[in-house]
Structures are given as structure tokens and as C-alpha cells.
């Protein structure tokens, strides 16, 4: 090791890989992954979310996790977004493309993608 810059480079490269273990973040994104969710296609949604969050360098701010059946099986795949001090946002009938848009607009831009939420479905 000849310089601090080299050390810093390794740290940057590794940080994304261990940040998962700190479990803190502004957003907690939870994907319903029970049998109903998986059957409806939750797996590509989860993987897209993880990938997009990592690629945009937000891994330290956003935790992507999974949960069991939320109870609204007809709306699967379901993605819930929790933010401290705010009401939970529930996205329904998700797919990989919709997941990308949620990362882009909601998690990065701070603007809820209203048309995918459960309240939009009921109307």
C-alpha cells in the first residue's frame, strides 16, 4: 500500500458489500415474498430493486428486504415502502419495469408513483 488513495479505493469498492449489515437507512423497502407473491412474479421485482438501489449508490440509505404474505394476494407482487415519520406506501401488481420507476421517482426523487399504489387500484 503506497498511498491513502489506494486504501480509500478498496474501501469504496467494498462499502456497498458490507453496508447491508448495518441495517439502517432512510427507506425500508419490503417485498411480499410468500408463495402467492413468488407465483405472481415477486422475485424479479425484488432483484430489480436490489440491483437498482445498488447501482444508484443508495445502498446505505435504502434497505431492501422481504416479508411474507401481506394478505392482499390478488394484488401481488406487493412492495411496501416505509419512511420514518411518514405513512407507508403500498405498491401493487408490480413488475421489474415498475420497480425501476419506483426507485427512480420515489426513492431517489422523493415523489410517490401514485398510479402504482393500492389506492389507485381501488378507484
Amino acid at each position, binding site marked *: *500500500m503506497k498511498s491513502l488513495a489506494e486504501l480509500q479505493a478498496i474501501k469504496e469498492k*467494498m462499502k456497498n458489500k458490507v453496508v*447491508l449489515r448495518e441495517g439502517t437507512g432512510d427507506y425500508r423497502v419490503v417485498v*411480499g*415474498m*410468500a408463495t402467492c407473491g413468488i407465483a405472481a412474479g415477486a422475485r424479479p421485482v425484488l432483484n430489480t430493486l*436490489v440491483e437498482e438501489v445498488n447501482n444508484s449508490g443508495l445502498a446505505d440509505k435504502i434497505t431492501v428486504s422481504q416479508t411474507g*404474505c401481506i394478505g392482499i394476494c390478488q394484488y401481488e407482487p406487493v412492495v411496501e415502502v416505509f419512511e420514518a415519520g411518514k405513512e407507508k406506501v403500498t405498491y401493487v401488481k408490480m413488475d421489474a419495469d415498475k420497480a425501476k420507476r419506483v426507485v427512480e421517482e420515489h426513492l431517489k426523487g422523493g415523489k410517490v408513483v401514485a398510479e402504482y399504489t393500492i389506492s389507485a387500484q381501488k378507484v
Partner: protein
Amino acid sequence: MIRAHVLICGGTGCTSSGSQDIQKAFRENIEACGLAEEVKVVQTGCFGLCALGPVVIVYPDGTFYSRVTSDDVKEIVEEHLLKGRIVERLVYSDTGSEKVKEEIGNVALNDTVFYKSQNRVVLRNCGVINPENIDEYIAMDGYAALGKVLTEMTPEDVIKVVTDSGLRGRGGGGFPTGRKWALTAPNKADQKYVVCNADEGDPGAFMDRSVLEGDPHCLVEAMAIAGYAIGATEGYVYVRAEYPIAVKRLQKAIDDAREYGLLGKDIFSSGFDFDLHIRLGAGAFVCGEETALMTSIEGNRGEPRPRPPYPAVKGLYGKPTVENNVETFANIPQIILRGADWFASMGTERSKGTKVFALGGNINNTGLVEIPMGTTLRHIIEDIGGGIPNGKKFKAAQTGGPSGGCIPASLIDTEVDYDNLTAIGCMMGSGGLIVMDEDSCMVDMAKFFLEFTVDESCGKCTPCRVGTKRLLEILDKITKGNGTIEDIDRLEQLCNYIKQNSLCGLGQTAPNPVLATLKFFRDEYVAHVVDKTCPAGVCKDLVAYSIDADKCKGCTKCARNCPVGAISGAIKNPHTIDQNVCIKCGACVENCPFGAIYKK
């Protein structure tokens, strides 16, 4: 893309309860479920809750599974990792985390009282990173302190920061680390050495092993910093051969650090050279004494030598040497990065920072805990330790191993730091904390530690070699019911003589368990010699088992289970025990369905 990490403890405790098989099962099941691209399995160091091992933590949720077996793995993978349903029955929770469970439905590691009450500085990476991966250490600010020291600070600056932090030696003596370095730095020599004492020998203490196993790079980094501060280019780690996992991981850490140029020549282009070597100890307790340790590194028989000259002047190979304990070193990188004030803000007036304790004995959460200095013994035992099992009463805590004393229940609100423990005739020691309940005999406990020191005395000086043996003989006499009241006075006299006249720390502290128990539990000694009884019912020669004729139904179960045939009686009639034949094994008490057998 990896979305979840499965952390499996690979410390000695969990390894012995099968964590290697669990690791293998996880890899197989994850592969079988097609999750290999999404879930990563990481072997880490000790999490601290050894009583509940093997321990598995799943991130990002932080779900904390305890007592996992290979058979449980399939369920965890299929339910939790695949479907996101936490396997409730394996999740550890304690009383304090019940509320969290209700609110969030998942108790994460950090929500448990056991972890929440801790302040992990020394153990910060243990159970978090893979100790065999230097990159993970670097991701957690590893080697940043060494970089800072070599590029921005002078050796004097480093010593000043360590001195200002108030860090004191964690091996037991509590000597200020900064002062030790400052005494060594100015001594001119063609070579100086940094030595790490990893010869952890106190029965029940295993914090040094956990640091070596869980975060070995931390030690490598700290020793290089110490080398820079005192002007040494070589370091030795003296570690017990009984710690094979620790030795293997430390060796890998040294090799990886060399490859990255973090050990070797011209580190960070600063012109500073430093290299490290491991020396294995054969397990002699006396080699934890600094002069004996250095004699052993030199290849000679591990015997202490008189001081002065102190190692700061004439240490390893006759050169100025700084010797510190593993836990002491493990504090150094954080002190450099976060500053002396940060470290000094934790703890009490004269004992700064945190201390790692190895909880053992009659306590629910056997394991490792790191808490700020000045935490009360009550908080350690009742909250973090989860209390005494089976509803028994707390009697005393033994600290400092064979060199230490005990804290009786009446002093449970003592704030644990160097000076408070010394004030009550106890000693911090390396941090072994053995909890004893009401069924423990204090004379027997003192005898246990004396047996240890008699075995481990190196034999060089007479007070220790002969004195400890005589102490043990008197204790043995007392526990057999042959002692007299004069024996107690002789015991005390001999203790003080050994303390004052022994050559090294081993002999000087060997009488401590006797003196401390005499101070707080003299009545128990008196009961042994005057009343010829053992109040706790431990000393076999002083207890007698009897059968309560009113409660005995004559079921014959005790007679059938007695290994020596000491119990007789007709069916459906009260039985009796022949005291001359009875070997006091207690098998009858365990087997009696009516609670008719008692000991006194």
C-alpha cells in the same frame, strides 16, 4: 446481485457446537433453491452470545437466530430467504425485546437487551465482518488509522493521543498505555520491539481469543501504530497453541497485510517499515507475565526475571520493548480515528473506555459483553447477563481469575472499574467474570483457584512454589473438616507472606482468591472448621444425605440408583442411608420422586 447476507459465527464456541456443518448446509440449500446469486454466506467471528450458539444472523433484517442445527437450515432457507417468512421458533428474544416484537414483528439483533446495553469498541467488527477478508476490514475503516498516523502524525503525536485517551492496560494491571509507550520511545537502540500478549490463560476468559478470531487485522494495525510510536520495526504476537483458529486467522491476516503492503517496507510511502511474527506458547500460565513471556519468545524456559530493568529499557532480546495485551491494542485504531476525547468520554474518571467481560458460571447469557467502564455489577448480571438460572440467588462474582478476588452480593451495586475493584480487594484482571449462586461454596472456590496456581507456578521462587502448595494443603484440610480456627489465621499470614515475597505477578496475586473470600465470607470458613459443616453443601466430607421418613414412600427408586448400595429398606417402608458407605454423589436426591432426601 446480493440482497441478503447470512452471517454464521465461526468462533471457537460456535465451531464446537457445529457451525461448520451449518455453514455447509446453508451453502447447499441456498444453491438448491437457486439463491446463490442473491444470498451470500459469510463466516464471522464471535457474536458474544456463546450460550445460545450456534448463532446465525440474516441481514438486512438483522434477524438473530440462536441454537441453530443443521436440520433447521433447510427451513430457514426456504422460509426466510426464499419466502421472506421469519422462522419464529429460532429467533432469540429476551424480555426487553418483547415490545419490539409486538411493534415490528421481528426482533433484530440490535433490539435485544443483551446487545442494546453494550458499547462495542473492541468487539465492533466481531460477528460483523469476515475475519479472513482484509477488504471487509478496510470497508469498516480498517487501516485508516495506520494511514493517518503515518501520513499526518509524528510519533510524539501518537503517544500524546493515546496518553490523553486515558487507555489503561486491559491485561489486568491497568498500567496507562500511553505512559508505557512514552517510557519506551526515548530509549535509543539499534532495534526495538512491540510485543502482543495473547497468552490468555485465566480460566473462563476468552475475549482476546475472540478478537484474534473475529477481527485479527485490528491487532495487526494497532501493533504497526505502536511500532511507529516507539520506533520499532519488528513485532511479535505470543499466542497460545490451544487457540488454533485464532492462530490460523491471525497468520492469514499477517500474510494478507504483507501482500497489500500494510506490513513490510515503506508503508504508505512514509519510509516506515514494520513486520510481525507469531510465536506459539505451550500454555504455561506464567508466560502471561511479561518477562516470562519475553523469555519464552527468546526460546528459553518461560520463567520470569526480576524487574527492574523494565521491558521499556531491556525487554525482548535485551532491547527496549512495549508489551500490551490484545484488548488494549484493539482499542488503538479507534482512538486514533475518533480522538482521545471521544474515548475519554466513556467510562469513569480514572478508567476510560469500555471493558470486555467473559460472563460465565451460574448465569443465563454465558458469553462476551463489552460495556463502558463504571457499569454496575447489577446491570451486568441481571440485565445483560439475563440473571441467574433456576431462580437461584446471586452470591458472588469472581473477577480476575486466579489472580483476582470476588465481589459479594452485598456489593452488587459497585460500579465496575479498576479503582473500585482494587478498593474492595478485588481486581479487574483480564475480564473473566464468573457468577456464583447460593449453591457455591467459597472455600471450595478458593481451593479450585489454588489448585490452578499450584499447577502453574513455574517453581523459580520459593514463596510461590512452596507457599501456594502449603496454602492448598490448609484449604484441603478445612474442606475435609479437619481444620482448626488457628488454620484460618495461618492461612491469612501465609497469604500475606506470599504476596510480599514472590518474584512475579503470578505468586504476588495467587493468594487473592483466599484473601478475598476470607474478607467477605469468613463465616463460611468458620462454619467449616468450627461447626464442621459446609453451608452451601458442596464439600463432600462435610455433607450428609438423609431420608425424611415422613416423606419417603418406600418406592425403592433411590436404592436402585445408588451406585454403592448404601440405601436399604423394605418396599413401601421408609429407607435409610448408611453414612459409612455413602459416597455423596447425590444420585438419590436427583431420583427421588417425593423430595424426601435432603442434605445438610
